[in-house]
């Protein structure tokens, strides 16, 4: 008999499905140490775990780029598709028509979404397809070693080269103008805010876009860059404190010192609670959201939080008029009409 004392049982936290967080992790990241994208991956893992998503019921979608490699690093029990550059939205649309019951989480970058894939992003928003669309936005192309992307801010300078002079595309402003039903901006360093927003996006029915400033530590983290950790921390304007209360928890009344809060009920019954910091932001007003974005741009700041929300629009599944059962489960004999039906068609064509 060994005289080694028995190890005390380690407490493992389980979520509402009795799953440990390990059920939601993925492979080891091959991104640069300190990359903002890895922080976002860990937030995705947490969000899925805390939300009690079945670990195999997610579809992880991505395009091409540093960000698009990350689906390998989270939710290892789910299938994923690392597609082609900028075209993840269309692949997701096709998959969604066949299995509308999966939770689609798309991860993209600024090269993927603001340049080559901007058309597909626009049309996915227009269709209000049910998906969470996270843009890991660092203002540069990493895999090709540091060229400016279309979201690089004017006057911002990456590690090598001259300051960017070309007008950036603000993907949140674009999305709001397109009538996107959930538009948020966050920062990879703001784990709590980002976590709440991702969880809320998972509970939303329709297209949820979260533009996350995610510094590139290798090519764009210098002091002159407007997307470095230091700059974003100094220049972030937070619209509100965000809290997420899942539908399986009771919503509690809380004290908000010196301010107000606003609860928004999401499609699955969960709540996102927005606590006012200074001035109140009305997320159901596109004008307020666009004003906040514009003001921040003028001041060379980054505004974060839930910019815009609209739960009145039908999602793509409703528009398509599909049967309730996901098409992937519809049996062959239903998919192929019977011989009598073909006989009728032949007869009608003969007449």
């Amino acid at each position, binding site marked *: 008999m060994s005289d080694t004392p028995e190890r005390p049982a380690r407490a493992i936290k389980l979520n509402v499905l009795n799953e440990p967080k390990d059920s939601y992790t993925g492979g080891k990241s091959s991104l640069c140490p300190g990359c903002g994208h890895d922080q976002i991956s860990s937030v995705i893992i947490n969000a899925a775990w805390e939300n009690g998503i079945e*670990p*195999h*019921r997610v*579809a*992880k979608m991505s395009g091409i780029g540093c960000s698009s490699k990350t*689906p*390998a690093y989270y939710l*290892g*029990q*789910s*299938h*994923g*598709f*690392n*597609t*082609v550059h900028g*075209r993840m*939205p*269309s*692949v*997701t*649309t*096709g*998959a*969604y*028509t*066949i*299995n509308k*019951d*999966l939770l689609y989480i798309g991860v993209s970058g600024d090269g993927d979404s603001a340049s080559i894939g901007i*058309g*597909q992003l*626009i*049309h996915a928003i227009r*269709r209000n397809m049910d998906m969470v669309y996270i843009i890991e936005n660092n203002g540069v192309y990493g895999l090709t070693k540091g060229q400016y992307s279309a979201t690089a801010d004017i006057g911002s300078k990456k590690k090598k080269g001259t300051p960017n002079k070309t007008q950036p595309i603000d993907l949140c402003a674009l999305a709001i103008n397109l009538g996107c039903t959930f538009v948020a901006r966050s920062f990879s360093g703001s784990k709590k805010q980002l976590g709440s927003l991702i969880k809320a996006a998972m509970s939303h029915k329709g297209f949820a876009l979260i533009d996350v400033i995610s510094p590139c530590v290798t090519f764009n983290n210098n002091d002159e860059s407007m997307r470095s950790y230091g700059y974003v921390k100094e220049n972030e304007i937070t619209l509100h404190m965000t809290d997420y209360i899942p539908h399986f928890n009771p919503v509690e009344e809380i004290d908000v010192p010196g301010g107000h809060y606003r609860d928004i009920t999401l499609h699955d019954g969960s709540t996102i609670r927005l606590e006012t910091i200074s001035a109140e932001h009305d997320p159901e007003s596109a004008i307020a959201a666009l004003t906040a974005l514009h003001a921040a741009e003028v001041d060379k700041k980054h505004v974060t939080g839930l910019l815009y929300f609209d739960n009145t629009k039908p999602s793509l599944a409703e528009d*398509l*008029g*599909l*049967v*309730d059962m996901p*098409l*992937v489960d*519809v049996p*062959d004999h*239903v*998919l*192929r*009409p019977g*011989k009598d*039906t*073909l006989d009728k*068609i*032949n007869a009608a*064509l*003969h007449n």
Partner: protein
Amino acid sequence: METIANDFTINIATANGTGSQSANLILLQSLFEMGVPVSGKNMFPSNISGLPTWYIVRLSDRGYQAPGNRTHIQVLLNPATWHEDLESLEPGSVVIWNENAKMEMTRDDVVSYPIPMSALARKINPKIAKLVTNIIYVGVLAEMLGIDQAELESAVAKQFKGKTSAIELNITALGLGRDYFKDNHSKSDPYVVEKRAIEKPQFFIEGNEAVALGCLFGGVQLLSWYPITPSSSLAEGIINYIPQLRTDDDGNTTCAVVQAEDELAAAGMVLGAGWAGGRGMTATSGPGISLMQEFIGLGYFAEIPSVFWDVNRVGPSTGLPTRTQQSDITMLYEGSHGDTQHIVLIPGTVEECFEFGWRAFDYAERFQTPIFGLSDLDLGMNRWACEGFEYPDQDMDRGKVVRDRDVFEAFEEFGRYLDVDGDGIPYRTLPGSGMDPILYRGTGHNSKGVYSEKPHDYYELMQRLKRKIEGARDILPAPLLREETECEIGIIYLGSMENTIQEIDDILEATGIKVSQCRVRALPMHSEVENFISRHKMTIVLEINRDGQLYGILRKELPNHLITKVRSVAYSDGVPPRAGIYAERILETLKEEVE
């Protein structure tokens, strides 16, 4: 005068957007109902209204369906092409022309029937005189050729399905045309229509509609498409039949339709559907396939079942959008960058359009790869006689997809790209199942689907893909052979050339040359094609393009000793193949051999 019955070509020259198409279809349908073997070709411009259009009706007791080598009866309405059309006629041809077109009859060596078509049409209804003018010439032709009034009226009823006022108006207009000819002209041409017994009842249908029906009976679950001539009517055919074929009592459907923002997105959606375990397809033409190349490569490399129909039009670039060609063969077979090889199904009849419509999905899931259907404008947008479609003779083939955990767990080792059976076709699981969850990718991967740059992994993967597609050769539709016992000359051809081949064969036979025929119906080509070549002294590959694309594929794949036995005859001018042109070129090629 000796009469010529059921062996002539009518060419009707109008402008598009004037409503001539419905008049032409009434003419075609009434001849068809009289049992006369007839074909119609619409030569229309890429334009909404006002540009020249020709409709060519060929009557042929021998069953020739090509436009024919000359026009016997010219109907002239369009001032824009008036002189060109007149000048191209052989002496003795018949010209039915609109006297109100303010144009002159400049030929005195033709049989001329002037008709005040516009004036007659105005008598019926001045507001729609332009539309009615077209039906007037059908009445004139009916009287001149002896088309039965009953068949005409039945064709009108079919065209305007239940629209009583339109039916009445058209029948009145037909009568005016008939009466004018009867009262003002005496027939001085030899052409007549004779009724033929109908042995097997047939109907007319466009290839695109036949493919659409086939796809629906193939269980299509997603159609994503971007409008492009000449494939739009294929997609719209599916959309039109969904309420009848794929919608439940509550009005909900089992076939999603998404009109994509472009062809790239259409292809992406098809792949997404296949990845998720569904049957997705798109319909497009060459320019669309050009745009889809990136996704086609992803489909090949990540092994995603997917179906792409290409209704070939004239390229390169925007080309001639409303003309026909067989010029996308190479692009489909070797589509996308890197080493690829794709399965291509090539129907030559409307019956095959239907059959390959449903089979494409079975092959896609069986071989887990993009499948192309290659039709063309001639087959897709013109009407062809059909006895009826045959119900699929086998259940849907869903391929090696593992849906049950018991089955999954019975595998000793599972890898998405593991060649368990030695046929190059791996097993797959579906998203949402939790079984073997992998991140599909267009990057290099090992047999487990994990990213790999290892030389061995890449080499083995590419060899397996090759083996997989090679394995399809003798499973895909075999060529159709019509062989002569002499086995001197063989002709290999494909697709819509089916409708011209017999006329070519007859022209060649009239010069004393007997040829065997081999119609290729799929790529990679069946081993029977090679056997056909080795049996014959010489084989000519006949194609509607400039470069001899199928010939090029054969040269690449045939053993050396057979390559020297194969010749190419490729020709394309945008017009559906006329037998004379191809026969002449075949004869030239044979002559060169003798010299």
